[in-house]
């Protein structure tokens, strides 16, 4: 315990720090960076949706009219698009999240070994990348299906 670093040592010199600008172009370092960015974005998006959803359902307590007028709000084009985003986001976040739970517990990354030039980082392997692609793909499929359900009913 006595070795916990003392954060006060580090002054807040952010000079030279990339800051949130570093998020702007998620593709420049490869798929893992895209995954990082999407996981954050979808996580935040879902949180907003979740808060909204809890608020939305609270109208149940005020009877059928309140519920219906609340539903009315979501039955718009914008509402449907937002719902579509939520479907995609939750699919991606969940699938990628499961991948990350494994990864961040050290599973599926390969073993350290003697690196051979030209170096290929074991951790940025095919399994990981395909995990990300699958998450994106499933998110797209879910959105397509969701779109069919939502818009198919002439919403």
């Amino acid at each position, binding site marked *: 315990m006595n070795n916990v670093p003392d954060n006060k040592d580090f002054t807040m010199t952010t000079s030279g720090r990339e800051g949130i600008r570093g998020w702007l172009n998620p593709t420049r370092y490869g798929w893992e960076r895209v995954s990082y960015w999407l996981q954050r974005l979808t996580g935040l998006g879902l949180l907003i949706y979740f808060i909204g959803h809890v608020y939305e359902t609270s109208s149940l307590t005020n009877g059928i009219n309140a519920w219906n007028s609340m539903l009315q709000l979501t039955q718009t084009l914008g509402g449907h698009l937002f719902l579509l985003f939520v479907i995609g986001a939750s699919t991606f976040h969940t699938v990628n999240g499961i991948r990350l739970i494994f990864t961040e517990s050290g599973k599926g990354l390969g073993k350290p070994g*003697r*690196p051979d*030039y*030209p170096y290929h980082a074991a951790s940025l392997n095919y399994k990981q990348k395909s995990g990300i692609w699958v998450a994106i793909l499933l998110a797209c499929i879910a959105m397509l299906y969701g779109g069919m359900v939502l818009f198919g009913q002439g919403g």
Partner: protein
Amino acid sequence: MTETLLYDIIIVGSGLAGLRAAISAASKNKNLKIAVISKVQVMRSHSVSAEGGTAAVLYENEGDNLESHIYDTIKGSDFLADQDVAELLVKKIPYEIIQLDRWGMPWSRKENGRIDQRKFGGYSFPRATYAQDKVGFYEMQTLYDTCLKYENITFFNEWFCTSILHNSNTFQGFTCIEIKNGHFVNMVAPSGIICTGGAGRIYSFSTYAYSSTPDGLDMAYRAGLALKDMEFVQFHPTGIIPSGILITEGARGEGGYLINSKGERFMKNYAKDKLELASRDVVSRAMITEIQAGRGFKHVSGVDCLKLDLTHLGDEKIKGKLAGIREIGIKFSGVDVINEPIEVRPVCHYMMGGIHSNVDGATELNGLWVAGEAACNSLHGANRLGANSTSECLVWGAITGELAANYSIKYKSNSINVDNQQISTEEKRIFDRIFRGKGDVNPYEIRKELTDTMDENAYVYRTESSLVEGLKKIRQLKSLYWKHVDDQVKEYNTNFLNVMELDSMLRVAEVVLLGALNRRESRGAHSRIDYKERDDNNFLKHTLAYYNDDGEPKMNWHPVTFTRYAPAERRY
């Protein structure tokens, strides 16, 4: 007044020697305040480039013995080594190897868990202790990390030392420039250790890091200390073209061949027992002879060369033991050594000479020691065996660290009485005469001319006329109107440092040439076409050069210490 910092021990240079000295001193007494100054960030010192191995006798019950290491070293030196020094190295280095193991060094291992060793040029037993082909790098890392254990070691990253402060014959401190902001600072202490490494950047074709310039040697030289045996410059047989980056001798130790344009292993004509694993001077001379006889290759850049063939070693051995070499080959030469031979040429690699010291690394100034490549305690004589240099750094790092610590404990800071005159003279020298100096010749062009001259006139083979011509050229360059710094900003001014480095290069190059001119014999790495034989009657002695106020250096001689072996003919 300039700022003054007081420490108990100041170590200039943070290569293997400097860091080893710091740990040795720091563990001696926790209250000693130790400063480690380096013109590069501490862990970036040139020592990280060492590749092949560190020589030590580890397996006495498997056929190796200390005596054999001592003899190999002395024979390698062409009998110019001080024999007591060689003995001391050989006795101490096994400790250092095991010590590094305790500190986390990733030595390459045998299947039974013991430390592995490989063959190296000039040794009669596989004695080069290795960690893949990045020995120096791993040793540096181990020592650096271990230094972080000691709260009493302070690193001064990117501080450039310019001169030694002393009081007649007692060391007092150093003057430095903090590169980041350009401040001029005095560092004073009862004792100091100079570990500023080699100076191979006085040659153009060189394995050294850009930071390996002779400012440390020059600083001692200007303070009145002698430079010893500077004419002995080692040319390593296998530097790649055009960069001069080294292919370690370990590549030949693992079984690599040198071939000429007829596809012959020509070394059989020069060293029929040891072939490619003869000592470096022998192999380099053989290579130049082959090239001059027209049996060389032409590199696409137009340079003559020979080839190093590793293709028969196989994929697995190369990837396992020479991974770094393969990487260097692919990246810097465009050749994958698994598939094809790589073009190589003898390249400036090591300076046997340095600041004159005794067997303990003590200099002519009380309280000042030297260790590592900057020192010349005469371990290597006229030619160093590969893998003996990192050994030297570790052993004398440890010795001088301890001696300096004892000295500082004994004398404390009350021996210090800094001469302000010296400080202001130094301030004038570097700021008035260099930083604000005037000139119209581009110093970088001078530097190029200087290093090309050295390549041309003081390479593997030397003659009276090449040396005289070289000396003339250097003196002419010196007299040109070049000492000026275009960049007048204080912060991180590398232009200023480059010009200061050049100033020292010119002086030290002159000493190298003059020493070579005076030594009218061929011994070890110094081969004179006009004096082909070793001449033990006249030249079995060390060269000393003393500074003489920008006049010609004062040259002198110094006897060699013999304890057990009389000079004999040297064959491999």
